[in-house]
């Protein structure tokens, strides 16, 4: 596997979030929606790689995008990279969302930076009807609105304070929409409480759903077993591993704590 790729461009999305395009024919060719890449961010204090979801894949151009929120040392260092810089990336990794042709009507539910993996899912999913529900805290945090609009049939945005789109949580949006129309599968990514709530909503309606989880990682490929998350197994529970068994899991299988 070739690890060294090249930074194509960096564009700010808002104050602390940016979109990075990376030139890599290999990853662009192989990457599926919901998979992630593990990036060496550089900087004196970022020893481990950092995982980021594939946000958009341009197969024809041999590039892909990741959306990054600056949170700590690694993402800070990443934000300082410049066009043309070499960048050390492992990927694509993990299991992505299921793309089933029998799912005719799908909904994606994203919260905050959880929207990133959902964009490529919308782009690649064969469904005839695609609904996107995105929730943000406030208007300044709303990102990629146009990009999502271009990839779905209906886009609804909520903000906690109503400063953009509908006021309230995106999970309420989901409840409303599921009451209105028939959906075959829901794809969810965002903060844990939001995912938990969204999964419960889907369960209540007997609609299958998938969630994309986050956990701190070591190897990123299933060898070190640090990225454990609780899943149901034979009536009991076990630890699965986000990097290899996920990051996408069926909503029914995950045990949120």
């Amino acid at each position, binding site marked *: *596997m070739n*690890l060294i790729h090249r930074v194509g461009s960096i564009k700010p999305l808002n104050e602390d979030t940016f979109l990075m395009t990376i030139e890599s024919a290999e990853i662009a060719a192989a990457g599926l929606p919901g998979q992630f890449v593990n990036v*060496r961010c550089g900087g004196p*204090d*970022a*020893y*481990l*790689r950092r995982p980021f979801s594939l946000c958009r894949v341009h197969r024809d151009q041999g590039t892909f995008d990741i959306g990054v929120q600056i949170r700590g040392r690694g993402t800070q260092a990443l934000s300082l990279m410049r066009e043309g810089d070499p960048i050390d990336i*492992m990927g694509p990794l993990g299991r992505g969302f299921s793309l089933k042709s029998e799912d005719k009507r799908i909904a994606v539910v994203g919260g905050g930076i959880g929207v990133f993996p959902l964009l490529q899912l919308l782009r690649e999913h064969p469904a005839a009807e695609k609904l996107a529900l995105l929730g943000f805290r406030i208007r300044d945090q709303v990102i990629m609105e146009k990009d999502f609009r271009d990839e779905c049939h209906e886009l609804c945005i909520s903000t906690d304070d109503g400063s953009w789109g509908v006021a309230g949580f995106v999970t309420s949006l989901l409840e409303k929409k599921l009451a209105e129309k028939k959906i075959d599968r829901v794809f969810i990514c965002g903060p844990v409480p939001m995912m938990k709530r969204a999964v419960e909503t889907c369960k209540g309606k007997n609609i299958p759903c998938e969630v994309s989880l986050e*956990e*701190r*990682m*070591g*190897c*990123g*490929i*299933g*060898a*070190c*077993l*640090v*990225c*454990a*998350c609780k899943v149901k197994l034979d009536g009991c529970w*076990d*630890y699965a591993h986000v990097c*290899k068994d996920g990051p996408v899991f069926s909503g029914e299988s995950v045990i949120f704590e």
Partner: protein
Amino acid sequence: MMENRIDLTVNIAGLSLKNPVIAASGTFGFGREYSAFFNLSRLGGIAVKGLTLKPRKGNPPPRIAETPAGILNSVGLQNPGVHAFIRDEIPFLRRYETAIIANASGNTVEEYEEMVSILSEADVDAVELNLSCPNVKEGCLVFGSSVSGITQVVSRVRKLCKKPLIVKLTPNVTDISEIACAAEAAGADAVSLINTLLGMAIDAKTRRPVLGNVTGGLSGPAVKPIALRMVYEVSKAVKIPVIGMGGITTGTDMAEFLLAGASAVMIGTAGFVNPYAWVEAVDGLERYMLESGVKSVSELIGGLMV
């Protein structure tokens, strides 16, 4: 052409390795994942994920914290159990020409005995006793950190063990040489060191420990100076071979451990950052040897000029 000139083979306790690089236990799974990156036959050996008698779920997440030039882990020996290992993993590993080292942990002396009896009949090349895992509360820590504990386990296990017996030492002790000598006296064929140093990380914002298990084991470049000192001390104290580890990233790091007295090394954490770390270390050592006019690894072992 390089191969003709440089001899990388080493012998440890009757085990012949094609080169002195062994994947460290717990960092390499059972080899499957890294086989997508390189041919496992390029490694001197693989110490598989720490095994226990029964399957273990391990500790609650988060299980890893990043620290300056290192990591803390608190996996807590999650593994499918020794029987599943023998059934599901050995056949896969045997496709490669590399030594298989079974890393074994137990809660009681009897469990260690049973593990070693089972592994003695299995198709592995050596057994590495983990008496030093800091993530398991019951037993382990105690055995590895006292002369009496290590003597007890190793001497009883020795009687049953039909494979080369490597005893893995914890660095969380006052005098590691003393412990190493006790392992030697009790019949160990080799010692490997260091396991992780007990550490902790706190998130000042949430005022909580970062790890679900509160404390965890420190590994990676940060611990290299401590590991190197311990390998140096232990290899002066014992006659059996020493396998060195702790923060090794490059062929040059490896040369330092060999010079300090190690006969082979294990590499773990560095592989999380660079999945090719193990094979690049082999190449790096070869380059180092070429540049310094050393023809065989044995010339390096213990070659530190003090």
